[in-house]
């Protein structure tokens, strides 16, 4: 009769943990808030672009986190899941996908907000924005797929396969968009180049990256715990 005990113990542990404040998540939010304060109050606006350039402190880190952290984690967990069949990896992929979708949405909304004053248009098919748009569609498809499957094993396997194929697709998207743009010359847009930033702005920039990664970690962990709890409860009910 060891199995029910272990599950009961797990439930108790998770419930106990949820009662305490989530320090990682709180720190993440505080860090992001601190970066905002620094960006708005203490960092001077950029010479040519004015105040709107400050959106970069939100836009760029979100984009970085969305693709290189969230999606990468999703793909790696999926690959490991297919090999090891450990449910924890599936929950991790699921959590990373949801949080990744949020970050991707931030990129897609801040892009136009930044683009309108700077470029004069709401949307432009530049490589970064286009790839992010595709990422948004892919993660959305991933979540809709998960929603459409009741059985946990099938859901995990199917989403893992989708995540891995999507990881293979991303380079093709980049290649195709790049080739498209070289064949169809588009207005060159000026972007603030990170390396030649004055130290003041660079510090804010880097701080923003760190803060967003922290926030991402906090959100994923919270979401992961929710998923664990949900699955434990479902197991209990099924017995």
């Amino acid at each position, binding site marked *: 009769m060891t199995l029910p005990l272990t599950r009961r113990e797990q439930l108790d542990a998770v419930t106990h943990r949820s009662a305490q404040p989530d320090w990682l998540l709180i720190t993440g939010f505080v860090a992001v808030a601190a970066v905002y304060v620094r960006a708005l109050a203490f960092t001077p606006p950029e010479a040519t672009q004015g105040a709107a350039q400050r959106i970069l402190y939100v836009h760029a880190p979100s984009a970085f986190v969305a693709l290189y952290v969230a999606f990468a984690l999703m793909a790696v967990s999926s690959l490991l899941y*297919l090999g090891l069949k450990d449910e924890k990896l599936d929950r991790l992929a699921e959590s990373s996908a949801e949080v990744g979708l949020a970050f991707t949405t931030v990129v897609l909304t801040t892009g136009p907000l930044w683009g309108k004053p700077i470029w004069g248009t709401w949307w432009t098919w530049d490589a970064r924005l286009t790839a992010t748009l*595709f990422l948004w*569609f*892919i993660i*959305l*498809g991933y979540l*809709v*797929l998960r929603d*459409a*499957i*009741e059985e946990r*094993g*099938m859901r995990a*396997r*199917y989403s*893992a*396969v*989708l995540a*891995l*194929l*999507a990881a*293979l*697709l991303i380079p*093709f*998207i980049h*290649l*195709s968009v790049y*080739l*498209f743009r070289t*064949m169809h010359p588009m207005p060159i847009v000026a972007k603030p180049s990170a390396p030649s930033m004055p130290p003041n702005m660079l510090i804010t920039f880097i701080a923003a990256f760190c803060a967003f990664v922290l926030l991402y970690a906090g959100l994923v962990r919270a979401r992961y715990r929710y998923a664990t709890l949900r699955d434990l409860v479902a197991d209990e009910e099924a017995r």
Partner: protein
Amino acid sequence: MLRASWLVARKDLAIEFRTRTAYFSALIFALLGLTIFYFAWDATAVAAIDLAPGVLWVIFTFSGLLGLQRSFGVEQADRAMDALLSAPVDREAIYLGKALANLLFVIGVQAITLPALVLFYNLPIADVILPLSAIALLAAIGLVAVGTLFSSMAVNTRMAELLLPMLSLPFFVPIVMAAAGSTAKLLAGRPVAEAWPWLRILVAFDIVFIVACTLAFPFTLEE
């Protein structure tokens, strides 16, 4: 394994030939699409020849989806898939067989849609029939490789008709871009060398995804 794949493909084609509904639906959809697109643009403002590549490959994608929808439906009906899975054949052979049947289906639709396009849009294809057919074949292979896998997954979910397009279309974008890009170059009379970068992407896509989807297929089966 190839023998088993061919048997599965032949069986699928026999079923399709018996009912023919999917083929004709896809074909009529494609032809109607060509027509609608022609009238949706002002022919004096945009030359038909500039419109044609984009129209062709968009239509081709959506009519391909119609064909892919039914690919695994036949296996689900009376749990025929169980019989396939308990047969002494590799799982990969089942995927390849279905993909082959889908490929022949799509080529069958293309075989009528392409001439129709040439006719409706007055395209000068005399010199480029061969490269154009090659592009069509490469694009069809990519479409079918990804679409067959997603079809096998979608059929087991609640929202099969919505999920198949939703999952597949992001994957079809590089195919459409490469196919349309190279077709445009060829129709404009440019040398084939200029279309080569696009063709390279298409070939790479096909190779990568045939291998990836063949390897991934067994993971989509309940075991």
